[in-house]
C-alpha cells in the first residue's frame, strides 16, 4: 500500500538526519573552549584532578576514538554520568523529560483548542469586527515574550487570584495537570497565534474552492461541508507548520519551566548549562533533537494521511 511504503521511505530519511544530529552534538561539545575539567573544578583545579576528570569523560583519547566511544555509548543507551548530580544522564533524562513532554503536549492541545475555532470564526467573518479583534489579539500575543506572559499569568491567576499554584509540578496525575495548566497556557499562546494565522488564511483559500461549491451543490449540511471539505483541506498546511513549531515549543518550555519552577528537562538544561555539566547538556540536546525529528516524522505521516496526494 502506498501509505505504508511512504512511511517506510520517510523512516529511511530519518537515518541521515539522526547521523547529522550526532555529528553536530559531538562537534559542539568538543568545540567548548577550555577543557570541561577546569570548568568543573574552577581555578583551584589540581592537575591530577583535571587528568582524572578528563579520563572519566574519555577526553584523553584521540578525536576519532572519542567519536567511536560516543557512538557506542549512545547505541547502548549509556549517555554518561552527570558531573554534579552523580547519577546517570539517562536516568536524569528519563526522570525529567516526561515532565517537559507533558507540558508541551498540554500546550499544543491548548493551542489547537484556541486556534482552530477562532480561525474558523475569523475566516468566516473576514474583514469584520470579530475577525479584526481575533487577529489583533493574537498579533499582540505573538509579540509577547514567553517569560513575560508567564510572569503576568503567574502573578494574576497564581499569586493574586490564587486559582492556580504559583509553581512546581504536584504529586498525582491530576495534580500535575493542575500545576501545568498556567505554564502550558503561557507556552500555547504564541503557537496558537501562529496556527490561527495560518489556518485562517488556509480556510479563506479553501472556502471558495470549487469542490466546496460542488459539496454545496450536493445538498450537504453546512457543518459537514465545513468539517469534511473545508477544514480537512485547510489543516494540511497547518499540520506541517505545527510540526515545524515543535522545536520552538520545546525551546519555550526551557523558559517556561524556569519561570514556573517546574522540574522538567528545560530547567535541567539551564541548570546544567550554568553548571557546565556537559554530559547532561549533551544527552539532553540529543534527546530533544531526536524528539523534534520524530515529531517531523509524525507530522509528515499525519499530513500524508490527510492528503493522499503526498504518499504517492
Amino acid at each position, binding site marked *: 500500500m502506498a501509505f505504508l511504503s511512504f512511511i517506510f521511505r520517510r523512516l529511511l530519511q530519518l537515518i541521515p538526519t539522526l547521523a547529522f544530529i550526532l555529528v553536530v552534538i559531538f562537534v559542539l561539545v568538543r568545540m567548548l573552549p577550555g577543557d570541561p575539567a577546569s570548568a568543573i573544578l574552577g581555578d583551584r583545579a589540581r592537575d591530577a584532578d583535571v587528568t582524572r576528570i578528563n579520563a572519566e569523560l574519555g577526553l584523553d583519547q584521540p578525536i576519532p576514538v572519542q567519536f567511536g566511544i560516543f557512538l557506542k555509548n549512545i547505541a547502548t543507551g549509556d549517555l554518561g554520568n552527570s558531573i554534579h548530580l552523580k547519577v546517570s544522564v539517562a536516568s536524569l533524562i528519563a526522570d525529567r523529560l516526561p515532565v517537559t513532554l507533558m507540558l508541551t503536549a498540554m500546550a499544543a492541545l491548548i493551542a489547537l483548542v484556541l486556534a482552530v475555532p477562532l480561525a474558523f470564526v475569523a475566516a468566516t467573518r473576514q474583514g469584520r469586527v470579530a475577525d479584526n479583534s481575533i487577529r489583533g489579539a493574537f498579533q499582540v500575543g505573538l509579540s509577547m515574550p514567553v517569560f513575560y506572559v508567564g510572569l503576568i499569568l503567574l502573578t494574576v491567576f497564581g499569586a493574586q487570584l490564587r486559582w492556580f499554584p504559583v509553581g512546581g509540578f504536584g504529586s498525582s496525575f491530576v495534580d500535575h495537570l493542575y500545576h501545568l495548566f498556567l505554564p502550558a497556557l503561557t507556552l500555547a499562546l504564541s503557537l496558537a497565534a501562529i496556527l490561527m494565522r495560518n489556518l485562517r488564511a488556509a480556510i479563506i483559500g479553501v472556502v*471558495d*474552492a*470549487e*469542490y466546496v*461549491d*460542488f*459539496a*454545496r*451543490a*450536493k*445538498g*450537504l*449540511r*453546512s457543518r*459537514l461541508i465545513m468539517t*469534511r*471539505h473545508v477544514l*480537512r*483541506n485547510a489543516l*494540511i498546511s497547518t499540520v506541517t507548520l505545527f510540526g515545524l513549531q515543535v522545536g520552538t515549543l520545546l525551546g519555550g518550555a526551557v523558559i517556561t519551566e524556569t519561570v514556573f519552577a517546574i522540574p522538567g528537562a528545560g530547567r535541567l538544561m539551564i541548570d546544567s548549562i550554568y553548571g557546565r555539566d556537559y554530559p547532561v547538556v549533551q544527552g539532553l540536546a540529543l534527546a530533544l533533537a531526536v524528539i523534534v525529528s520524530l515529531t517531523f516524522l509524525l507530522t509528515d505521516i499525519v499530513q500524508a494521511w*490527510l*492528503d*493522499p*496526494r503526498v504518499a504517492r
Partner: protein
Amino acid sequence: MSAALDTGSAPALSVRDLSTTFQTPRGPVTAVDAVSFDVMPGEVLGLVGESGSGKSVTLRSLMRLVHAPGTVSGAVSWKGRDLVAMSAPELRKVRGGEIAMIFQEPTSALNPVLTVGLQIEENLKAHTSLDRSARRKRAIELLDLVGIPAAASRLDDYPHQFSGGMRQRVMIAIALASDPKLLLADEPTTALDVTIQDQILKLILDLRDRFAMSVVLVTHDLGVVAATCDRMAVMYAGRIVESGPVVDLFREPHHAYTRGLLGSVPRGGAERTQLLSIEGTPPSLAAIPPGCAFNPRCSFATEVCRRDRPALAAYAPGRFVACHHHTEVAAAGTAVAA
C-alpha cells in the same frame, strides 16, 4: 414578459427576472441582468456566450451557489416552489436531490483528499434512506453506469488516481447519485480532449434519457450546442439576447451577436466559406454601454440601439430576440460567401 417564454406544456424549471449583483468597492456590478427562461421536462437547453457573458453565474445563481458579495434576486420556480426564496433546509433537499450540478474542471471540483466512494456516498446519505452497504452498492452501480471500468475496485481511489476523462465521469456519477430531475452542467467538456468530449456529451444524453432529466448546458462551443441541445439561449453582457430551438437559430439567427457567433464556427460541407468575426471585445460588466449592450460591435446598429435597450420579445412561436433590427439581421443570412 413571464408568459412570453411559454412553449406549450408546463416547464420543469421556470426562471423569471433572475439578477445577480456583486457589490464591489467601485459600486455594484450586475453579472446577470433580469434573465428569464424555461426548461421543459426532458429537454436539453444550451446557455451560450463568451466568457464573462454571465452564463456560468446564471447557472450558479439558480442554485444560490454565488459567492459573497454576490446577491441573487428574481424567481426560480421548481415544482411550484421558488428556489430564490426558499429556506436553507428546503434548498438543501433540492440541491443534489432534485437538481444536480457538474462543473468545468473535475480536478478542482472533486475534493482531492476524499475517496470517490465517499464523495458519492455523502450525496446518497444526504438524500436517500439507503444504509451503508446499500449506499456502497449504489455507488458501484453509478460508477459502472458512467463507464468506469472495474468500478468496485475504484471506490477507494482518490480523484488524482483517475485520468481527466474518467474524472469527469466520476463527477457526473457523484452529481447524479440521488436521481435528480434536472442537471446543470457548466462547460462539462471544455477541459477535455476532443475525443473524450464526445464521449462525455454522449454519456450526458444517455443519462438524460435514463433518468428522464432536463439538462441546462452552459457552453461557449456552438459545436457542442448543435450536437446536444434542443433549444438554446444566447447570453451577452449578462442578458439573454436570443433564444429558440437550436435548428431554427442556426438556420436563421435574428440577433447580430448570434449571427456573429455562428459565423465564427467553421462548418462542415460548405467549402471554405469566410468566417464572420465579431469586431471588438465584450464589454466589462462594470461598464456596459447604454442602449443595446452589443451596439458598439454591431454592424446593424443605429441611433435607437445606442439609446434604448431592446426587450426580449417573441417574434414567432418559441423564438425570442432582443434586437431593434432583427428582421434585417435575419435577412442578412449567416455566412458571407468567399
